[in-house]
C-alpha cells in the first residue's frame, strides 16, 4: 500500500472528523479564493469596461481621471489636432452636465447629460430605436426612459444646468432617437446623451468645451499617449492602464488592502486549525505509530504518512473550495454592487488564472506547514517508551 493510499485509509477510518476537516478547509479555502479574486477584481473589471468603451487614451487637463479639473477649452480644435497624429485613429470630445428632462404634462427627471463631439465613435450602445442622426436628438438610458415613460420618437423638454451655472438657459425641445446602454451606468443612473453642439445649445453656451477627450489609438496606446503629450505638454494623456492605476491608488486601494488582510488571516486560520486537527489525530495514534516503527516502518515513511494526510485534507478541501468560492463570490459581489454609483457592469470579484495559481500555492504551503509539527512528533517518537506507555495505559 503506497503512502497516499495509506493516508487515505487513515482519513476514512474516521469519516466524521475527516469530512468536517475537509469541509472546514473548503469553507476557508473558498474565502481565500474570493479574497484573491477581490484583490484584482475591481481593477480587471474596470479595465475591461474601459477597453470595451473602445477608447484607449484619455486626455484631461489635470492629473486625475476622472476628477476635478478645468474644462478643456476649444476642445474641437484640440480634437482635430490630436486626430492628425499618426498614432491616433479617432478622437471624441466628451462633456458631462446635468439636465432636467420632462415630457409634456409629466414630472421632470434629472439626468446626467453627455455631449459627445468629434468622430462618430459613440461611448454607448443603442439597444432600441436608433442613434443620434439629426440636430436636437438625444438617446436615453433605459432607467431614464422608464422614469419618463418615454420611447424613441417622443419629444422631451431639456433644461440644462451647465458649469459655471451663472446663467439659466432656456428649455429646448429634443427628440428621443433611441434607448442606449452606457457602460458606466449604475443601476440608479438616469442618463442621456447628445452631440457636443446640441449640449452647448442646451447650455446656451459656445460649443467647444469638454471635460476630456477620448482617443482610439492606431494600435499602440502608449505611443499615442506620448505623441499627444508631446503635442500638448499642458495636458495629461492617460492610457487605460494608467487610468486604472490611478483609480487603484485613489479609490480601489481599500479592496486590495482588505483582500490582503483577509487572505493573511484566512491562511493563518487554516494553518492553525489543520495543525491542531492533525496533531490531535496523531497524538491519538501514537501507539499505532510506535508499533509501525517497531515492525520496521522507517522514520521517513511515518513522517510521509502524516504529510500525505495533510495534503489529502487540504487537497480535497481545496478542490471543493473552488465551486464554493465561486458561489460565495456571486453573493459578496451582489452585496458590494449595492454601493452607490457602482456601474452595473462593474464587478468586484473577477476570475483570473493567476488567482487560481496563487490559491493552489497558498493551500499547498498551508498543507505542508500544518504538517510540520505533527511530522515532528512522529519523527521524534520514542518507540520503546511509547509502546510501554500504551501497554501500561
Amino acid at each position, binding site marked *: 500500500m503506497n503512502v497516499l493510499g495509506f493516508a487515505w485509509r487513515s482519513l476514512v477510518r474516521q469519516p466524521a472528523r475527516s469530512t468536517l476537516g475537509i469541509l472546514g478547509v473548503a469553507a476557508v479555502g473558498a474565502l481565500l479564493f474570493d479574497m484573491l479574486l477581490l484583490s484584482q477584481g475591481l481593477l480587471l473589471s474596470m479595465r475591461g469596461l474601459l477597453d470595451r468603451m473602445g477608447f484607449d487614451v484619455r486626455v484631461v487637463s489635470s492629473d486625475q481621471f476622472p476628477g476635478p479639473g478645468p474644462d478643456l477649452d476649444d476642445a474641437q480644435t484640440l480634437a482635430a489636432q490630436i486626430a492628425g497624429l499618426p498614432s491616433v485613429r479617432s478622437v471624441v470630445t466628451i462633456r458631462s452636465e446635468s439636465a432636467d428632462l420632462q415630457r409634456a404634462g409629466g414630472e421632470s427627471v434629472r439626468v446626467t447629460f453627455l455631449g459627445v463631439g468629434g468622430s462618430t465613435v459613440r461611448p454607448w450602445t443603442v439597444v432600441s430605436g436608433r442613434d443620434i442622426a439629426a440636430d436636437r436628438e438625444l438617446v436615453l438610458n433605459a432607467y431614464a426612459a422608464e422614469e419618463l415613460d418615454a420611447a424613441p420618437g417622443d419629444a422631451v423638454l431639456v433644461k440644462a444646468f451647465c458649469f459655471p451655472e451663472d446663467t439659466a438657459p432656456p428649455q429646448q425641445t429634443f427628440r428621443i432617437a433611441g434607448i442606449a446602454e452606457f457602460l458606466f451606468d449604475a443601476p440608479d443612473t438616469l442618463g442621456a446623451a447628445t452631440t457636443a453642439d446640441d449640449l452647448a445649445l442646451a447650455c446656451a453656451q459656445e460649443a467647444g468645451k469638454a471635460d476630456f477627450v477620448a482617443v482610439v489609438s492606431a494600435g499602440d496606446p502608449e505611443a499615442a499617449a506620448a505623441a499627444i503629450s508631446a503635442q500638448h505638454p499642458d495636458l495629461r494623456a492617460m492610457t487605460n492602464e494608467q487610468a486604472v492605476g490611478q483609480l487603484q491608488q485613489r479609490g480601489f486601494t481599500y479592496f486590495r488592502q482588505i483582500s490582503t488582510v483577509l487572505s493573511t488571516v484566512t491562511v493563518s486560520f487554516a494553518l492553525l486549525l489543520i495543525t491542531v*486537527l492533525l496533531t490531535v489525530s496523531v497524538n491519538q495514534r501514537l501507539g499505532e505509530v510506535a508499533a509501525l516503527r517497531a515492525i520496521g516502518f522507517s522514520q521517513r515513511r511515518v513522517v510521509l504518512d502524516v504529510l500525505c494526510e495533510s495534503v489529502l485534507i487540504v487537497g480535497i478541501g481545496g478542490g471543493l473550495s473552488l465551486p464554493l468560492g465561486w458561489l460565495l463570490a456571486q453573493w459578496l459581489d451582489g452585496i458590494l454592487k449595492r*454601493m*452607490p454609483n457602482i456601474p452595473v457592469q462593474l464587478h468586484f470579484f473577477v476570475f483570473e488564472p493567476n488567482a487560481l495559481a496563487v490559491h493552489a500555492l497558498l493551500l499547498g504551503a498551508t498543507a505542508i506547514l500544518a504538517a510540520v509539527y505533527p511530522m515532528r512528533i512522529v519523527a521524534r517518537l520514542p518507540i520503546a517508551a511509547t509502546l510501554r506507555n500504551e501497554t501500561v495505559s
Partner: protein
Amino acid sequence: MKRRTFLLALSTTLIVAFSSAQTPEPPSILVSRQLAETEGLAEGDVVRLALDAAGAGARPFRIAGVYEPTPDPMRLGTVPREVRMHLPDLLALTSDDDAPTGAEHVARINIALADPANAHAFARSVNGRAPGVFARRAAATGSASTFVVLERFHLAIAVVTIVAATVFLLALTIMLVDERRETVGVLRLIGLPAPRILLQVLLEGLLIASAGALFGLALAWVSEGLINRFFQWRYNTALIFVQVTPRVAALCVAIAVPLGASATLAASWALMRRGALRLARR
C-alpha cells in the same frame, strides 16, 4: 454634475517666501499635517498660493498652524494636501473679474439646524423658495450608504469565517470527546445516567469556550492596534480602521461561547448514542 475645486488640486504652485517687516501682514491659513510634512512647512512660514501652475496671481499667506484633517474613508489613498483659509480670502483669491457675482460664489452652504429633525422640511422649503439651489439633508445617501454596504460585506465575511470555524470546531470536539470514549463508557456501565454525563460535558465545554473567547478577544485587541498602526502609516491618515467596541466584544462572546459549548455537547451526544459496552471496549 461637474464639481470644481480651486485649491490644492493645483498645489504644485506653492512657493515658500519670508515677508519683510515693511509689507502688510499676510492673511493666515492652516495647512494639513500631511502637506506640512511633505513640503517642510511650519507655523509662521509665509507661502504663496496661486490658481494656476505658473503661479500667476499668487498671493502670500502666513501659516498660523498645522491641523490634522478629519479622516475621510471615501478618500482613502489620497494624501490630504489641504489648506484652510477664511472665506473672504478664498473668494478674493479665486474670484473671476468677468463674473458679476464672482466674489460671492460658493460651492455649498452647510447649515446646522436648531432642530435636526426638521431637516427634510427645511430642505423642501429652501428648494421651493430659491430655484437654482438644491438643498438636501446631509446624511441621506452617498457615503453613508457606501459604509452600510461595506458593513454588510464585512458581516458576510464574518459569517463565512464563523461557519468555517464551527466546522473545524466540530471536528476537533469529536476528536477530543472520542479520546474519552472509554471513560464515558465505564461511567455509563457503573450507572451514571447520560444526562448527568452530558451536563458535565456541557460545563467543560462552557469553560473551554469562555476561555477561548477571552483569548480571542485579547488577540483581537492586540490585532486592532497592529492593524490600525499599519494602515495609518500606510495611508498617512488618522483614520481608525478596526475598532473592538464593547458591543463587538459582547457579540463575539455571545456567538463564540454558545457555539463552543454546543459543539462539545453535539459531539458528546453523538457519542452517547452508542451503547455503554461498545464505548468501554477498546
